[in-house]
């Protein structure tokens, strides 16, 4: 099978994510590790919807997260997470 290629772009940052899987199904991301190696805690997920990121170049399920009092998007693209870089 052909591999789905990865598209590298300076505005697209793939991140590692920690998530809690609930016993009744479903899950929620609790923290991610940014490219500087630091782990950031997600204090709240305020919105979940399917959305495209024209900036990073891709589409997936978009989690709107509060992180250190800022709003950031976390995209679940199939089985990987990416974020937009300013």
């Amino acid at each position: 099978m052909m591999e789905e290629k990865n598209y590298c772009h300076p505005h697209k940052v793939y991140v590692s994510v920690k998530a809690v899987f609930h016993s009744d199904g479903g899950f929620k991301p609790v923290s991610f590790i940014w490219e500087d190696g630091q782990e950031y805690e997600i204090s709240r997920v305020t919105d979940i919807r399917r959305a495209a990121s024209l900036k990073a170049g891709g589409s997936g399920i978009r989690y709107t997260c509060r992180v250190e009092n800022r709003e950031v998007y976390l995209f679940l693209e199939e089985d990987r997470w990416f974020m937009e870089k300013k």
Partner: protein
Amino acid sequence: MGERVILHADINNFYASVECLHRPEIRNKPVAVCGDPAARHGIVLAKNYPAKATGIKTGEVIWQARQKCPQLVVVPPNYPLYLRFGRLARNIYSSYTDQVEPFGLDEAWLDVSGSTHIFGDGIRIADEIRERIKSELGITASVGVSYNKIFAKLGSDMKKPDATTVITRDNFKQVVWPLPAGDLLYVGRATKHKLARRGISSIGDIAGNDPGYLRSFLGKWGEVLWSFANGFDSSAVVRQGEESLIKSVGNSITTPRDLESDEDVQMIFYVLSESVAARMREHGFKCRTVQIQVRDKDLSSFGAQGKFSKPTYISSDLAEKAMELFRANYSWANPIRSVGVRGCDLIAADSQEQLSLFENEARRMKQDKIEATVDVLRYRFGHFSIQRAVLLKDNDLGAINPKEEHVIHPVAFFKEGRLP
């Protein structure tokens, strides 16, 4: 029953749009998605609007396209990604109706007659679908809204990108009839010429002619086109799942190099037959007829078919029959560029079978078992874990894996070219 509400959604420049979404740096440059020149698939598969503006056409070879547009950005196709986006688009469609009929990866008909009281009229649903494709997938679609499939499809072709076009019983004469005859579904090059020779150039010309006259030079299709042009098409949007009534299983390939001998062709027939046979077994079918398709390097082609004495899904049966047909029909005037093998006249594999007194049934059962074993080995260890010795003679030709590289092509509007 009220008037039907049919939508036809067509994603604009599908492959190119998906590539441009994932590569923001080339979004505003002329972009063409092209096949692999090394494997001799080096043609333009799709292009974006800046590339289209330079006159580049789908199907052109890369150097022709580069002549028209030296700064053209050429990217290779990424089928798994397109399949994913096609699936996501279909997910959006199916939140409005269960009657979704895909036409290739990037087009689909939707019958929303039963959902207008929930979601609003056809235009409203069309606009909402466009909005969602844009925000959720990051690409755009054009949607045609009408009371039959033919006009809905015409509508989706009229305004691009990202637009809704409505064709009603009241406006179709003004909207559809001035369009060139070639825009009508199933008016191909040959039909267009036949029509043009008789002074029929627009869809309105077809509609205004006597169906009997059209029939006199186009056969049954004459009447079908006449009814299309007049908006009489009443064919149903085939519900999801039902369209999978498989009529035939086939594979064809443009080979990495021209085929020059019976031996080359036999090798490819084995490769294709293995894939066709494996897919028939996967779906639980046997075939009673095999068809071959051969195209030489000047692109002239012929087909031939032959019947089996009994239904089969054994690859060597297919390959041997294909070779027999080939030998009887080709005299090697030219080297060959592409070949195809297709099993048709399918029956369920577990149907009753008359055993033969004169054939070695024990041997056939053994072959059955061998092929089933090969399927399992390939499933567990990959396609190339086991191969026929004949395929080891040529690295280029033997390295083809048509079963997994098999790409979905648009299905015919009428399956198997059958008239409604």
